[in-house]
């Protein structure tokens, strides 16, 4: 039996997973929508991976989780590594592109920039307070224009004269877009303008003050949009590298981290049969009223979090 490692990246919009061997080769991969239900998404993900995966030849001995639902899914999968998405993305990308200097990452609800020197992260930034210029914004604007988000990129490429759209804030961008639409700007120009707005917004906010050096790797769900890729290379005047697996690099990174971890534990693919449930309880021991999330596996409490102080700590009874 050869050893294999599972990496799972559960974001706000999509859930990604890969299984790799000891040489970081991807043996199985899956990508699906989170649909507001991280537990359900992870279950579907695991069964999809199980179908692709030669369980007679390989054995998964390490699991890593990342993404905004990393803690919850880490508990459910019994992960040996739970890592933030910035570190995970950096590890995943440098494993494929050791020379990379700048990583642009735009996901469903957040965007980040990671600056790398000699293979290690030396600086990064992540959007705060606002989700302007992320995947969710593009999806909602596509809907407004009666398009599928997948059609967005190719349509943008048809434009010779991108419409100027305010890039500062989603709300401004949206009303700007509506006005320009109503005064007769062509749809492909508006779409190309939106792609440009996403890029300017990103570089002005997240990339502010960072020295962008090539090679530049662009990843995250939005990197699938060819219009945004073009806008990035127009603005930075640099080549933009997009890996065919650009949406999976966070999952890949955390799988590598699981591989590097010394502790090994056999992973059981049969989690579909297990009932996972979360329950929120209000602590009520002070006016903070912390909402404590309890995670149950087949009725047993396996983990809890959300308390700000020791008063709200819920003790886990040892399972016999």
């Amino acid at each position, binding site marked *: 039996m050869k050893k294999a490692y599972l990496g799972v990246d559960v974001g706000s919009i999509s859930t990604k997973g890969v299984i790799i061997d000891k040489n970081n080769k991807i043996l199985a991969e899956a990508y699906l929508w989170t649909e507001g239900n991280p537990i359900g998404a992870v279950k579907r993900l695991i069964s999809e991976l199980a179908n692709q995966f030669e369980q007679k030849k390989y054995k998964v001995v390490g699991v890593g989780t990342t993404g905004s639902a990393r803690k919850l899914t880490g508990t459910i999968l019994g992960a040996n590594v739970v890592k*933030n998405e910035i*570190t995970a993305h950096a590890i995943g990308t440098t494993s494929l592109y050791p020379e990379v200097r700048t990583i642009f990452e735009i996901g469903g609800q957040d965007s980040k920039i990671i600056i790398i020197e*000699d293979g*290690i*992260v030396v*600086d990064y930034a992540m959007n*705060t307070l606002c989700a302007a210029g992320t995947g969710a914004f593009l999806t909602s604007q596509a809907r407004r224009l009666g398009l599928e988000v997948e059609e967005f990129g190719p349509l943008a490429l048809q434009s010779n004269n991108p419409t100027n759209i305010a890039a500062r804030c989603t709300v401004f961008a949206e009303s700007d877009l509506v006005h320009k639409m109503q005064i007769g700007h062509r749809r492909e120009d508006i779409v190309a303008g939106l792609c440009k707005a996403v890029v300017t917004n990103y570089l002005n906010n997240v990339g502010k*003050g960072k020295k962008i050096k090539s090679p530049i790797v662009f990843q995250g769900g939005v990197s699938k949009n060819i219009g945004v890729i073009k806008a990035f290379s127009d603005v930075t005047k640099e080549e933009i590298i997009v890996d065919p697996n650009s949406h999976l690099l966070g999952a890949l990174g955390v799988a590598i981290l699981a591989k590097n971890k010394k502790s090994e534990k056999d992973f059981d693919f049969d989690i579909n049969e297990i009932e996972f449930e979360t329950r929120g309880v209000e602590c009520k021991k002070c*006016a903070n009223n912390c909402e404590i999330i309890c995670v149950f596996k087949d009725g047993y409490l396996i983990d809890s979090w959300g308390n700000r102080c020791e008063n709200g700590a819920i003790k886990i009874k040892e399972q016999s």
Partner: protein
Amino acid sequence: MKNKKKVSFPHLGNYWVAIEFLVKNALDADYIIPPPITKKTLELGSMHSPEFVCSPFKYNLGNYIEALEEGANTLMQTGGLCRLGYYGELHEQILKDLGYDFIFINLAKVSYRKPYTFFSDFKKVNPRLSISKLTNYMALMIRMVKIIDKVEGFIRENVGFEVVSGSFDKLQKEFLEALRKVKTKKEMNDVYQNYYKQFKIIKTKKPKKPLRVGIIGEYYTIMEPFSNHYIEKELAKKGMVITRTMNISNSLFLRKDKDIKTRIKGYLQYDIGATGTDTVSEALRLAKDGYDGLIHVKSFGCMPEADAMSVLQNISNDYKIPILYLSFDTQTSETGIKTRLEAFYDMIEMRKEKR
């Protein structure tokens, strides 16, 4: 004594101990400690505040309302070199509109060139107050603030390495309680010496060259742990030295304008208001000292600190020191902050290993 005033002042870290000392001793009044800040405090404050005001205003207002409900009848507000200078008038008006009855002492209206105006404000609380009594206790209060800052500075640099978790927290609580009981300078010094010794002998396991992170930024959000999601504690838990010298002692009592201007020459020519200039100066000092990283903290929309940020980027480039920028408003979810702090920790740790 009948008609004893019940004074209250908004929370800022643990400084309430020093303010209580001044109120009780110089003003002969009771001090109402605002209930500890919770989500409810922030909800109350936000509900009655202008939407786009900086978050410290909302916290202060929440403290006032909760203190009034606890029986306070005299409220104090300080002045400042940014929007803080206008907090007082607005707080007073909002609270009066809400139907509360109280005396409001707004130190923003005091002219520092005419100390008498300062004195007459306090006389409203204690008509028999003498100038010598006030100056005497003011000096003691300043001393107490310095003691608190000194002790807390030591805690920040060492709490991450405690062997028994919670030992610093526990002693800190005892220390503050002991400080609350002092009446004279001698007692104050005794408490300080006694506890400083005890803090020093708490068992710690500090590596030879630990990771060091400096925290810089806006006045309130940096000093009130609730408003910054307890980032100091959160970071220290990972085993780091946390340095934050931007405290009341250094911002108010020990600040030397001239020194700062010389130090930041080349980065900043003019004062950018409030703590912005100090932020730059402190960032530069820590960068030169070889710190592993800096965290810049501000409330959302804070102008002086937004100005400081562009200068910080130059310092970050020149000294190759990573700076994480965090902006806080009234959001109370921890997840986003935790992600950024974790990534920051991973980054500076890997940078250090590489060196």
